[in-house]
């Protein structure tokens, strides 16, 4: 290479742009591509179940309302996180989340293991009017959830779509979806989803897997 080669690159914007893109992409190709391709090898535990209809509806409300903008569902492997929120999150816990609800933006607390931490009533009142319970809260209120009904046919259609993506729903699951959400509001669905986080609907880490993985959140003092 001589100076004229550099001069050529420098003076031709497309060449410069493409070569820059190649160099910048190397990091992503090394760090991201292998885990993308190998994602299918994440093994779920035997008792892993996809979201039941009501929680599935709740999950979609969670995504629609943008809860992820302020709440992560990813407890990092750092002492001050595991002490506060419980065992760090594992990949298989998000196997049925499309899209996953990880993230590092925490205006509010992490919710990966919030299920059961508060009562159903607490979640309900808190979603309707956060400041009725936590005066310092800056979370918005979501009063419309209490009046919006969950559409059973819609939930069944979502389950059929997810089955195409290999979520293990049975015909009986899908046939029973409309009945399972009958008369339920979006608030009921979201509360059911939240109360299952880290408990009911997420696969329990395999006992034979990573050492020391406890199935239930436990704060170590």
């Amino acid at each position: 290479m001589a100076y004229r080669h550099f001069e050529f690159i420098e003076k031709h914007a497309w060449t410069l742009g493409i070569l820059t893109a190649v160099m910048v992409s190397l990091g992503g190709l090394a760090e991201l591509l292998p885990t993308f391709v190998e994602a299918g090898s994440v093994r779920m535990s035997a008792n892993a179940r996809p979201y039941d209809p009501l929680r599935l509806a709740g999950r979609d409300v969670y995504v629609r309302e943008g809860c992820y903008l302020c709440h992560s569902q990813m407890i990092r492997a750092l002492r001050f996180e595991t002490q506060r929120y419980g065992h760090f999150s594992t990949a298989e816990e998000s196997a049925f989340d499309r899209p996953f609800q990880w993230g590092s933006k925490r205006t509010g607390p992490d919710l990966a293991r919030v299920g059961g931490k508060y009562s159903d009533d607490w979640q309900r009142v808190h979603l309707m009017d956060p400041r009725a319970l936590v005066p310092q809260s800056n979370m918005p209120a979501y009063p419309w959830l209490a009046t919006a009904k969950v559409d059973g046919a819609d939930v069944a259609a979502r389950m059929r779509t997810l089955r195409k993506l290999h979520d293990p729903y049975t015909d009986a699951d899908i046939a029973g979806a409309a009945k399972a959400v009958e008369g339920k509001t979006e608030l009921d669905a979201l509360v059911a989803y939240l109360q299952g986080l880290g408990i009911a609907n997420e696969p329990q880490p395999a006992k034979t897997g990573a050492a020391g993985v406890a199935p239930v959140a436990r704060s170590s003092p």
Partner: protein
Amino acid sequence: MSSGWSWWVIGLIVLNLGVTFFLFLWAPRAKVPVLPDGTTGHVWAHGALREGMHRLPGWWIVASLALYFIGAGYLVLYPGFGKYKGTLGWTSGKELAAATAANDAKLDPVLKRLAAMSVEAVAADGQAQRLGERLFVDNCAACHGRAGLGNLVLGAPNLTDNDWLYGGTGQDITTSIHDGRSGVMPPWNALGEPTVKNLAQYVLSLSGQPHDAAAAAAGEPIFKSTCSACHGPEGKGNAQIGAPNLTDTIWLYGGTQAAIETSIRDGRQGHMPAWSPRLSDDEIHVLAGYVHHLSLGGNATAR
């Protein structure tokens, strides 16, 4: 990581570092033709901007070279070069375990010291109060409020008044936190709205609030036959099942006529979650001490 991906990562690292290192070595040596005016002849804005020709500053060259050494050193010490694990054997799991162990080493002696004490004594311990406050703010304040004053909307009891639904001994408080509590007042709307209103008047009369004496008298027999099963014939409550005392001025869901009618008509199922195993027994012990401390107006003294 399969060895195929390992080689993929290694190849990319070598390519990246190789290309940039080649440029680092070679580019400063490239012969750049310079015009008599000292520029390269590259112009922008119709010649208003011309590209000058200067050598790279020494500090820049040194800093860049240092980065190659740092990068190489990192790849030797830490995992990153494909499957190679690094000479330090670092993993995020080990770092977490070490950080947790270091924290436990500081915290465990304190928890152990407190675990040997009674809840009442823990309440008076300054270190326990600070620990308990952290735990309380993170876990309990959502319902009971930061100051422990409770919440009428949820029926979360005020913890500062030394009035207890399930008993206020150290053991009672520990049990409440450890196992949670569930209120089980059934709805009485089946009795009919007039009866509900009469009962509410009678309940108002129990705590000496203004009430309609005739309606209260009409409600009294219903109370004696029905409500007394849990609240007692005199309405003084029952700590065994967490039935509130109705003769005092402390109200879980509010003591107005409307709130009492709602409580009777729709029932109340206040639920406190169990905190075991979310919190360890030692942490629950400290929390019980803190709650006891709150109930004494925040001025617990050792007994």
